[in-house]
């Protein structure tokens, strides 16, 4: 147990993790756009890109947890939107703090519903969350008569405010997003719960034979993801101070895109939230950079789509090589 050997091991460990590939891709994209456009490389643009990342990035954290268990969450955008509606509705009556708490509760309950059906009744997450996506979207619309609710500036929009360091504007939303990522990196990598999440996604049968309560772990993952989406709701109100029941309709697929590009395997058991952070940034950098380069936004979508396929392909190749 000598230290130098340990750090070499750790370095090699890092280079062979899924994080290395996405990180390299992100750096290449940044270098290319910095070299080919005048407007990409400046603090204001970087601040903007971070701002643009927070909501999808936060949803993608919850999505990562679920995908690690070999699941998928099509309802995360809808859960978050429901959260904004609940919060905004109570805030209109003057109960901002109560609204935030009930928003959390609503998102956790929606996650619990998904988790319950997936863990107890063993239905495929794809179908379950497709169902709750539809139900929750309609519920949110019914609650507001399909209208948007205004969100009072103050505590509810604080996540859009921030501070300046060295020319960068950093919002509280960005801070929250990074903190959540760090927190879940720790929870996944350094706690028994995290180990069990990987084990359940990797091989539920082995997990069960080792005495892990597979359905409890699954359920907890969906509830925790729901709570993360609630934070996403708060961040979203900081970005745009309204609660719109028809907003974020593609957030589910966008978050899956970020997770997959970040190197988390759709088959479960492999990946993590740091990769997802990078994956989120890759998507935003690509969009922003291609825009700066004056390229049609449809090509941006083609680029993103191609990246998803490449990411899944890489995952497949890694798996085939190892098995």
């Amino acid at each position, binding site marked *: 147990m000598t230290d130098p050997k340990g750090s070499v091991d750790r370095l090699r460990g890092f280079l062979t993790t899924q994080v290395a590939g996405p990180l390299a891709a992100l750096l290449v994209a940044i270098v290319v756009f910095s070299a080919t456009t005048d407007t990409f490389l400046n603090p204001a643009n970087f601040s903007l890109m971070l701002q643009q990342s927070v909501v999808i990035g936060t949803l993608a954290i919850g999505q990562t947890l679920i995908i690690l268990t070999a699941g998928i969450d099509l309802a995360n955008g809808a859960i978050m939107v429901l959260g904004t509606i609940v919060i905004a509705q109570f805030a209109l009556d003057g109960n901002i703090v109560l609204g935030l708490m009930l928003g959390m509760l609503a998102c956790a309950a929606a996650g619990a519903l998904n988790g319950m059906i997936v863990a107890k009744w063993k239905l495929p997450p794809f179908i379950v969350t497709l169902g709750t996506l539809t139900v929750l979207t309609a519920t949110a619309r019914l609650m507001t008569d399909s209208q948007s609710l205004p969100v009072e500036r103050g505590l509810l929009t604080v996540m859009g405010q921030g501070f300046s360091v060295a020319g960068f504007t950093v919002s509280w939303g960005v801070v929250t997003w990074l903190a959540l990522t760090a927190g879940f990196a720790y929870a996944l990598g350094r706690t028994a719960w995290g*180990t069990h999440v990987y084990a359940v996604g990797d091989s539920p049968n082995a997990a069960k034979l*080792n*005495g892990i309560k597979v359905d409890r772990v699954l359920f907890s993952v969906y509830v925790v993801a729901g709570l993360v989406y609630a934070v996403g709701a708060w961040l979203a109100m900081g970005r745009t101070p309204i609660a719109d029941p028809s907003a974020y309709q593609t957030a589910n697929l966008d978050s899956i895109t970020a997770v997959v590009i970040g190197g988390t395997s759709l088959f479960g*058991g492999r990946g993590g939230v740091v990769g997802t952070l990078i994956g989120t940034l890759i998507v935003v950098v690509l969009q922003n950079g291609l825009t700066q380069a004056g390229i049609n936004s449809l090509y941006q979508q083609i680029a993103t789509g191609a990246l998803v396929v490449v990411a899944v392909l890489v995952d497949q190749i890694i798996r085939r090589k*190892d098995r």
Partner: protein
Amino acid sequence: MTDAAVHPSVPETTDEVVLYAKGLKKKYGHVTAIADADFQLCANEVLAVIGDNGAGKSSLIKAITGALAPDEGTVFLKGQRVHFKNPLDARLAGIETVYQELAVCPELDIAANMFLGRERRRPGWRGGLLRGLDKAAMRKEAADHMEELGIRVQSITQRVETLSGGQRQAVAVARAAAWATNVVIMDEPTAALGVRETGQVLDLILRVKARGLPVVLISHSMPEVFQVADRIHIHRLGRREAVVDPAMASMRDVVAVMTGALAGSELPSALKAGPGS
């Protein structure tokens, strides 16, 4: 006439009997995996369980260890009736099992697999408040267990996916031997192993026995069985057909019973060992 009456030296429930099961039954639809099977493991013995493919050996030990719920039957541990609802219950009772399908998580590293389901936390607030795992301690202990078994791996932090089939098996075996406090059960632990590794697993079995723990060894290898077993439980068509004494019976006798060429009841009683014979 009960078994105990035939073999008063090994009655059904005494201090000698560690694990005992009676009348286990399990059907999968029309397939009968366990047909009214009995089982008895005594203190300080290596009990080999042999039988053809599909005889129901794995199902039997799964039913005993809570990995599957038998339709009928009772299980006793040290004279106490036990109801293992899942493998965790059996593990908490000190029964460690190497399942045939190995039950390792390929994406996790060796140390994490060794401690799966009973991770160790760091001392102090980092383990308490922050629930942090003591990875260094777990790795060290896992490495010690692997070394004890003489299994060479590059690094204890290697993902199990990167191990050979035999090394994976070794991880599962080392894990069971390390944790058991009452019984070790191994379902074909040497199936994927080379000669050297097989020898090490057999050594380990004898070492576990020397530690005072009885071992159940399911195996298809007759030489292996005759090398380490104190008694041989022959399973056939979902039932215990006979229990024989390897010191008295020959491999030919055992194979004859196993394949049905000879009924258990036709065996000379001198070859038998304990109830069910």
